């Protein structure tokens, strides 16, 4: 028989943690995190994966000034290529969707991407690449897209893999049901099917709900609405602004219950391009102050327009 080496890992972990507690406090956290993450890789990747604590809303890089394409920067490379490549959704109304009336990709996320492209080229030269929720991190990591603008929540686990811009939108998870449903929140949906997209924070929250709803992962949020209309699921649970976009497409649905999570949206960029993160933050700062952000919010989400989420940085 082959020796099953991973069996010896849990004792090793205990020893490591014990040693870490006994050692210098500063290095202890680092060591135990390293051992834990190695153990998590071998045992059960997603479930046990240890994430160092962080502050997701203050995790980005401070821009050095107004957006400027400096020679040798990643922005200069994008400019040489002639267009920005952005990973977006094409089915999340009103953030990123294809307008059936003209075939164009539009939405709040799309406005932000266009503003960034404009800061690079002077005009919005963007190639939109439609990606699913689950593809967001791999697409950024592989360099297939320069940036992802896709109702993406900034959290500590994702910050391990990619960099984020400052927060450009604040959402929170709620529940969408048919008008005749008596469910008031996830608590009333125990044992019932609840839909969200695969690879989203929403589906993880549904799985973790104490009432144990049955999580139904799909590719797009519109797929969830199809299932709800066909009575295949009892509810959809995701960010309130996305639910509002779905409710706008079906007057027989309603949003119920409290907002039970906080989902700060950021633009995902490869960890290899900190200069681009700074550049994007500078563009976002401009949008916050010159009224572009408010205009886009009013157009896609509606009035009254709140104050844009403030820019907070790591330092």
């Amino acid at each position, binding site marked *: 028989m082959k020796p099953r080496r991973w069996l010896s890992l849990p004792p090793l972990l205990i020893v490591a943690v014990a040693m870490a507690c006994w050692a210098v406090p500063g290095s202890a956290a680092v060591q135990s995190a390293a051992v834990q993450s190695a153990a998590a890789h071998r045992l059960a990747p997603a479930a046990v994966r240890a994430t160092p604590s962080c502050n997701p809303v203050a995790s980005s890089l401070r821009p050095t000034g107004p957006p400027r394409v400096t020679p040798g920067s990643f922005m200069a490379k994008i400019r040489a290529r002639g*267009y920005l490549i952005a*990973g977006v959704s*094409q*089915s999340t*109304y009103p953030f990123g*969707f*294809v*307008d*059936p*009336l*003209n*075939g*164009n990709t539009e939405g709040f996320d799309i406005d932000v991407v266009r503003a960034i492209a404009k800061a690079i080229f002077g005009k919005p030269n963007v*190639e939109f*690449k*439609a*990606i*699913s929720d689950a*593809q967001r991190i791999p*697409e950024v990591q592989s360099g297939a897209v320069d940036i992802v603008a896709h109702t993406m929540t900034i959290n500590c686990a994702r910050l391990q893999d990619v960099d984020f811009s400052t927060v450009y939108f604040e959402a929170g998870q709620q529940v969408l049901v048919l008008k005749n449903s008596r469910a008031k929140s996830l608590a009333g949906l125990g044992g019932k099917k609840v839909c969200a997209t695969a690879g989203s924070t929403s589906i993880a929250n549904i799985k973790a709900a104490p009432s144990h709803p049955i999580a139904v992962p799909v*590719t*797009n949020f*519109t*797929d969830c*609405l*199809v299932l709800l209309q066909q009575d295949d699921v009892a509810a959809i649970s995701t960010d309130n602004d996305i639910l509002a976009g779905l409710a706008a*497409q*079906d007057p027989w649905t309603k949003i119920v219950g409290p907002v039970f999570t906080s989902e700060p949206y950021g633009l995902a960029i490869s960890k290899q391009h900190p200069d681009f993160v700074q550049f994007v933050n500078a563009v976002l700062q401009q949008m916050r102050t010159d009224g572009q952000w408010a205009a886009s919010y009013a157009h896609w989400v509606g009035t009254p327009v709140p104050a844009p989420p403030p820019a907070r940085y790591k330092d």
Partner: protein
Amino acid sequence: MTAVGDPPRPAQGARPALGQFVRATTTPAKLRLLLAGLVALCLVWGAVAAWVVSQRAAGANDAVSSSETLSLDGQQIYRALSDADATAASAFLSGGLEPINGTARYQADIARAAAHLESATAAAGHSPAARDLATLSAGLPVYTGEVQTARADNRLGLPLGAAYLREASALMRGTLLPAARHVSAQADAQLAAASGQATGLPLALVLLVAAVIVGYVLYRAQRWLLLRTHRRLNPGLALASVAGVISLLWLAIALTVARADLLQAREHGSTPVAALARADIAALQAHADESLTLIDAQGDDSFQADYLAIQHRLGPGPGTLLTNAASTAQGSPGGGSARAATTAATAWYRAHKTVRALDDNGQHTRAVQLVTTQGPGHSSTLFGHLDGSLTSAIAADQAVFRVHATAGRNAFTGLEIGVIVLSLIMAAGCALGLSRRLAEYR
């Protein structure tokens, strides 16, 4: 129960009479026995020959009428549904108001599929294909309902429409098209079995053995009579012999002719048709992949991967569908078109490569144009050449099948009744001939 040591005694009277008949010691008794035996033998011969003929004719009939119809309907259902799916997808592809000719084409496709579904269900009866046809009958309204919902949402400007279209397409590709493919495959298997039954050797062998036995017994009977009665010719037995020879000749000619025709129908008809149809179905599937790659807004390349997998299976190249189809169609009227299909396929693959290159480099609109509109070098036009070559090859070889298989079936016309009547004549001849001899002893 009888006691041990007390053997049962035969009943008086009954046993000696029977023993006398079976032992047939006297000439009249022998003649009586011979008469009964010959009449029975002639009737058995008639029954065996009629049974063999009915089996063969049923096989030929099954091949011509039901199996071939079913296979053809299966192909047509697949073609119509696959085109409906690609048409519905490309209507959304173009953005804006759906082009009216796209809607018309989709509706014509659905109507065609429904018509073939009905005739296939009638032809299938209780064959294994019936279950797949039931799947199609149940799934088609669900599919059209979803496409209609997609269309209505699209008209309202709701992005939800695209989700309904994806769901409809998934139903089509995951359930309906495989069922249609299955119908054709099962019908082809049924056709092969039917044509095997109509041309196979075991039944002919049964007939041959029966003929040898009847011929030998008739010959021995006449010889015995000749020796016993010193008469050269017994008209009754002679009549029976002539009738026997006629029925044997008729059987031999009909079976040989039918066999030759049915083999011809298989070799230059149904076999190339089945191979060509397999290639055509694969080509249609790849064509739908080409459209769906452009519409699928998920950024995954599953449709393109499917296209490449099919391209690999389709060929041309050794062991591929197109090359197999071209080689089985060699020498048949569809051979030329089948060869043309292999070159058309290569040209289409090149155009598809151009489409992919354009789409991958941000020229989506131009790529869509190449797939949805006709023009020199356009992918849609070149696919049209491939599909056109395959369909005309299929039509040509199907005509060959029809002509030969019908001729093969017609060779059996009247044969079953014929052999029964001839066997009755044989029995009557034997009875007549022997009863005359028997009368001489009264």
